[in-house]
């Protein structure tokens, strides 16, 4: 390690202001701080610092996303082989999914980090870590058969217009990954919905050839709910890709069609455990989202005039991107409410909005994305009112004494 350190020290002058490679200074600094914790010491204020930094925080989130990512890869393969009616064994299934998902991850990182690096160099700042998380969130919330060029365009749009124009990580109003998803949904609606996009039926790098079996349908359970919106109550039954009925347990495990990382509530809860254990995400937000969702679903149950309304609260929380959004998106500290009281309100309203959109909007089966983006707008307002109450308390104190 000594040799590496010496080498870095040797080439460092080239990247300083006026050096030959000054145009790559941010990249060099990024690499250097990636390899070594900076040895910069404090100049003012406190003399000692907590060991945590932005890199460590982001690392914790990425670790939390690993279960959902791995499960998503396996499920991609699983759905594919279900569609062509063969069972190649666990490893083959995983390899297929791995190869199908990897390009999506790669495109998202290359486009996003490329823009981050460029902007950092342009603004003469350090490279910020924010996109390390966004870059892995994006593949997890898109359907597997989304064309790669669309992902590239959407990622570029989100990073530039949802983040960099506001000033970079820490200044953005909207969750970057969700903006990517929203851009895909509204810019390419035909490619983003329908039965086929959630299950890859074709081959991946030549693997997994086969013909689709009869009766196959790649519709997600929520998609089926939308299709069945006019059906009489009681006749609706959620089914898997081959038409077998789905139990609550199936929905929890997540071997069902859906966006890559959002189907398995089990894997998401593992991630949630990591986030809460390390204290990186707020349990207040997470809990409130689930509470808000369950509360709203229960109310719709009481009305219960359509299939969507009569879906039980448990099903609502397990289906679609609800759990994924609650655990990984709503808890994004930058775009969520920043006061502790505000987090309860923010989370609860996300849960409410998600179920309302799902239930009352026949055109769009997935409400979580829009609910979180909507509440991102309202987060500062929520904080404003929480602060107002503190201010009022202070003024009242002055008057009474």
């Amino acid at each position, binding site marked *: 390690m000594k040799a590496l350190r010496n080498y870095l020290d040797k080439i460092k002058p080239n990247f300083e202001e006026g050096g030959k490679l000054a145009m790559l200074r941010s990249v060099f600094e990024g690499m250097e701080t990636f390899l070594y914790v900076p*040895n910069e*010491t404090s100049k003012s204020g406190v*003399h*000692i610092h907590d*060991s945590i930094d932005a890199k460590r925080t982001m690392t914790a989130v990425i670790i939390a996303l690993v279960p959902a990512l791995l499960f998503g890869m396996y499920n991609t393969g699983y759905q594919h082989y279900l569609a062509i009616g063969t069972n190649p064994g666990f490893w083959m299934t995983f390899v297929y999914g791995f190869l199908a998902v990897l390009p999506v991850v790669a495109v998202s990182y290359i486009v996003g980090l490329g823009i981050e690096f460029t902007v950092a160099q342009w603004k003469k700042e350090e490279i910020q870590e924010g996109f390390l998380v966004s870059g892995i969130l994006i593949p997890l919330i898109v359907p597997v058969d989304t064309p790669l060029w669309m992902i590239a365009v959407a990622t570029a749009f989100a990073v530039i217009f949802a983040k960099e124009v506001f000033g970079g990580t820490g200044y953005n109003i909207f969750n970057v990954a969700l903006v990517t998803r929203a851009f895909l949904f509204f810019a390419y609606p035909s490619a983003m919905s329908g039965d086929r996009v959630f299950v890859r039926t074709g081959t991946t790098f030549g693997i997994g050839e086969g013909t689709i079996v009869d009766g196959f349908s790649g519709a997600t359970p929520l998609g089926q709910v939308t299709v069945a919106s006019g059906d009489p109550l009681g006749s609706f039954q959620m089914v898997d890709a081959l038409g077998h009925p789905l139990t609550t347990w199936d929905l929890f495990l997540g071997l069902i069609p859906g966006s890559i990382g959002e189907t398995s509530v089990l894997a998401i809860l593992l991630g949630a455990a990591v986030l809460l254990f390390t204290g990186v995400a707020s349990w207040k937000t997470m809990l409130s989202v689930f509470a808000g969702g369950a509360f709203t679903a229960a109310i719709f149950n009481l009305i219960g005039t359509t299939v969507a309304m009569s879906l039980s609260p448990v099903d609502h929380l397990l289906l679609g991107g609800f759990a994924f959004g609650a655990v990984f998106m709503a808890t994004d500290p930058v775009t969520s409410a920043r006061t502790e009281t505000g987090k309860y309100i923010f989370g609860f309203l996300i849960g409410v909005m998600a179920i309302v959109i799902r239930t009352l909007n026949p055109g769009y089966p997935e409400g979580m994305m829009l609910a979180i983006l909507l509440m991102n707008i309202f987060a500062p307002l929520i904080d404003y009112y929480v602060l107002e109450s503190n201010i009022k308390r202070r003024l009242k*104190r002055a008057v009474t004494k």
Partner: protein
Amino acid sequence: MANVIKIKKGLDIHLKGKASEVLLTAKKSDSYAIVPDSYNGIVPKVSVRTGDKVKAGSVLMTDKNRPEIKFVSPVSGEVTAVNRGEKRKVLSIVVKPDASIEYEAFGKKDPSALTPEETKETLLNAGMWPFIRQRPYERVASPADTPRDIFISTLYSAPLAPDFGFIVQNQEADFQAGLDALAGLTPGKVFVGVKKGSAQKWSGVEIVEVEGPHPAGNVSVLINHTKPINKGETVWTIYPDDVIIIGRLFTKGIADFSRLVVLTGSETTERGYIRAIAGCTIRSLVEGKLLEGKEHLRIISGNVLTGKQVSKDDYLYAYDNQITVIPEGDQTHEFFGWATPGTGKFSLSHTFLTWLLGKNKEYVLDARIRGGKRAMIMSNEYDKVFPLDIYPEFLLKAILAFDIEKMENLGIYEIAPEDFALCEFVDTSKIEIQKIVSDGLNLLYKEMN
């Protein structure tokens, strides 16, 4: 005891190098100095010249804007230098001490028999006034004001801080005399915060027991939980060690600035209390007591959270009763620090496995900031270590934007930079919070006066 404050928010950082309750011997300092930068809110006007003979208690400089505030020599001897920096800013006034100290005589007085004006006069003449600081703005108090109340916290809760119970031993009468003098200055009360369960009994004051992790000992906590400051009110604060010195002025009639300074930190060989006089050289305190040669050291006048970095040739800052020595850490290059499990690294968050080792493990922390500077990302970090009814993050943003109305509304008059020290310590984004707050307070003062 009716008054008990119990706080939960906060953080005790257990550092290696705690001092034991022993007295250490130290070299005699070969020079003493007053450093105008020690005091916030004054403009120094030097009143001596090089070569002048002074006694302990003779005026060395005054405040240009409030000439009644005098700063006196802590020892008798000869003025050897008036050091100036850029724009002729006064850096220090140095006095070479005589073999034995000659004191200016101020006369013994009974503090409870004096009128407030007489007490003020006595304190001003003997150079004790700068010990008294005011809230809002955390600066040297103005003699023209009448404070609503006076607050003193005798609980030192910062990392490795001295124990006031030990310091006050055998000086109880002086401390009480100091309290009596202060009590005469306010129509309100003198609040004294004491460590929960301590046997300190003082008369004529309101005793408040304080319990909890740092910053429990910060005087802001005492104020906020007893009688918070509202807009337009002024309160005064003073460190208890300085109350003893004030007390001595009344009981002995001299300006005796000697005090106990605690030497702490992982890079010291001997740890304990040293009897020293304010303004002595750092060298006289630490010479022969440091682990030298191994790596660069950082000597801090004060504690690791609010102290100032000094070199051996600098002087002990006016209010400080602690020297902390930690490794500088600039020679350390930690490989893949963000990815390792992190045994041996201290963090409030649970992203490092050290939190499994329990709360009482002692750590050696160096001065590295341990990460790159970022925009504010995480929320609720500051709240966890900020036990006042104030939203630190939003107040900080108001200060950065210099939105005066918002700062007032969010409670800027109640805080001092030291209250944000722990926020700065735990901050993921490594923002220099205390500097922002202190600049903000000074700018606000200029704007309002």
